[in-house]
């Protein structure tokens, strides 16, 4: 590193003299780094970590905002917003963005669903919430729908709607393939609980009968003698 030019030295010193090092020490050193051309890796590691965390949070918030408005945002805006997300090195957010792109592409096919007599608005609302909800909200909704399928009427309506969805919006169904498949499987109602290894009562009934028979036989044998 070489000495600063008189102008650069004056500017650097004047700038730093206006900073209070008691709580602007980082700013003083940032100005010094800039004046002397020091590399950025001499920034405080905590500072870099905090900035990284904030960058990730900011990006995640942008993805979440698109997810929250996936059903209402104009498609062009949605597509351009999704395309503008800098998601390199963020595999989880990339997965959400890919899901949102699939939903965006399928949105145009959805109005056709409502014209079908098998259309079930309640199920479709739940399905939308599963597709565009946060992980916990979607998880709860999946379980609620699965639970409602214990009801025969709801199950019948739901399965009809499932068939309709698979025909009209297969790409959306693929996003929740596992869950939709589990809804299509016939569910057994839990039977009453039984104890481990079943009841041993029958064994003891056999024992008592055998013992009584043997004793009677012995008595008969002895008395006959």
């Amino acid at each position, binding site marked *: 590193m070489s000495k600063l030019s008189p102008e650069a030295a004056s500017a650097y010193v004047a700038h730093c003299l206006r900073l209070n090092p008691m709580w602007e020490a980082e700013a003083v050193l940032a100005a010094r780094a800039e004046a002397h051309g020091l590399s950025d890796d001499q920034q405080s590691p905590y500072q870099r970590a905090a900035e990284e965390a904030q960058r*990730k949070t900011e990006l995640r918030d942008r993805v979440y905002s698109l997810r929250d408005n996936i059903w209402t945002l104009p498609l062009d805006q949605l597509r351009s917003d999704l395309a503008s997300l800098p998601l390199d090195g963020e595999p989880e957010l990339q997965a959400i963005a890919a899901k949102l792109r699939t939903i965006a592409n399928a949105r145009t096919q959805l109005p056709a669903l409502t014209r079908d007599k098998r259309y079930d608005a309640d199920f479709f609302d739940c399905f939308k919430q599963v597709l565009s909800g946060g992980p916990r909200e979607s998880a709860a909704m999946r379980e609620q729908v699965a639970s409602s399928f214990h009801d025969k009427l709801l199950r019948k309506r739901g399965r009809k709607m499932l068939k309709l969805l698979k025909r009209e919006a297969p790409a959306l169904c693929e996003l929740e393939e596992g869950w939709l498949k589990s809804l299509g499987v016939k569910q057994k109602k839990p039977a009453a609980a039984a104890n481990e290894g079943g009841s041993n009562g029958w064994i003891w009934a056999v024992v008592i009968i055998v013992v009584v028979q043997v004793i009677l036989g012995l008595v008969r044998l002895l008395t006959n003698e």
Partner: protein
Amino acid sequence: MSDHGKADGNAPDWSLLPRDPAGFFSLGEGFDRKDLKRNYNHLLRQFKPEKYPDEFQRLRAAYEELERRLRYGHVTDVAANVWDESVEAADAEPLVGASDRIAAEATQDKPNDLESLATQLEAGETTVEQLYEQLRKLPKKTPPDFYALALMADATGPTEKLLLLSWLLEGLAEWPGDPALSRLVYAYVGTQTPLERLPQVLVACSKAVPGDAFFELTEGGWDRLLRGGSFDTFAKTLAQCEEPIKASRDPSIAGRVAFYIHALRFALWKDPTDWKTEAWEFVEDDYDQAPEHLENDFDALGIVREYLAHREEFTQGHPLRRRMDQVLEVAFTADQLEADRAVLAMQAELLETPEALSEAFPPEPSEASSAFYTLWAWMSHDTASRYAPPVDSEPDYRMWQGRIIDLLHRLQHQGSFDKTIWNVMAILKGFAEVVVALVAILTSFTGTLFGTVFLLASLLSLMAEADAILVGIPVAILATIAALVLLWRRWSAFLEHRFWGPFCRRMARRCYRRSWRPEFFAFMDRSLLDYFAFRDIASDLADQQNDERTWMSHFITQDYGLAFYSIAQQFRT
């Protein structure tokens, strides 16, 4: 600076900085580092660096400062000093020539007005070199003078001479404990001192500040030396630095204890020398001198030591364990950014491959896994506080309880090869009990009957054989009942403990590994329920039943695989 109020309706009171950071963070009486971190994270969400860079800087600086002060045991506010007058006196009277002003203020023993010096430099009324020479000649220099001299020397002299630091240290030697000079030295040593010069700089610091305060002042530099240099250099430099401190006879050792606790966090993992043992002994012996806010840090070091004692056992076996161990080591020894990246990558891998997690952590008690789990949970929680998505709503525990009941019930009745073997053995056990009971009853009955008849009719000739039989039958029945009562309980316990109990345990473990556990992983995956909530619900259910669900609960309780998976789920977006 951007408009504070725009970040949130509940904007903090920025006027409290820098004098009252505790008030700024809304910390009440008796607050600790956890409270500070929670409130700091809350404010961070309001003041993101992209939108509010200035506020973010001030927030971060205030947090780091207060956090360090808590660790080193001084929570009192920074004392009033000359800095505010000096730096913020922008509305001072019209300026005369710089040299006149410096001379005038020197005679009044007042601090120089740095703002006016800056204005003069900008107006071209003087040069940095001229100002430097004038300030240097002052007979009595204030901390702001030393700050200005440090800046000017740094701007005009060769940088390799570290003139900035030299003047700051000179200022600290003359004004021990000045908070602004200390803050700048701390930041400079922690970030901008070239690594190869650090040992020399640290020794220079120990000579300028030869007391317990040295440790706090230079902590950032030691961190860099530990991470960038060799441990040997660290130990030798520290020994050199401690000489003037010992010679100063400063009775306080709280700073040294706090520093050793801080350095041990690294040294326990990386130190090939004996320093860690000596340092640990020093901390243990002088723990009563440690600042109170270090209790958790000390406990954490204890757990690290416990884990390291089992480390070899832990890392043997599945490669995933070794990788998790390496991430834990990075979390304790690397800088925060690198540690965060390693932790996030590992959590993403665990979420992607629950089957590997399941293989790596078989459901059995393990002291090594227990110690590792504690550290892993603590480290993950810390990273999650910065990166995990916020949890908007609490899970509906009642709903999930119902789903867990259904799940355990379904698994209880689900058929499998192991379950079939188990059931067949239960039937065979029943038959064995019947056969043994029959043999016991018959042996006892016939033995007693024949014995009675022989005794009464043949040996003693008291009665006819037929009469003896009539007497013998009730005697034999009573003897059989007595034998059954006396022996059956023992036989049953023997059978249970020696054969049936171990067999059931073995079969339950096989069922758990092959059939039940994958279902539990799948349930955790789709429910995102916390492991402890899942475990407690299963345990409550098992308490009410005495069947396979008791075994399920038993193995869930010792299943670290599920627990690690649950931790990773915090990071799911």
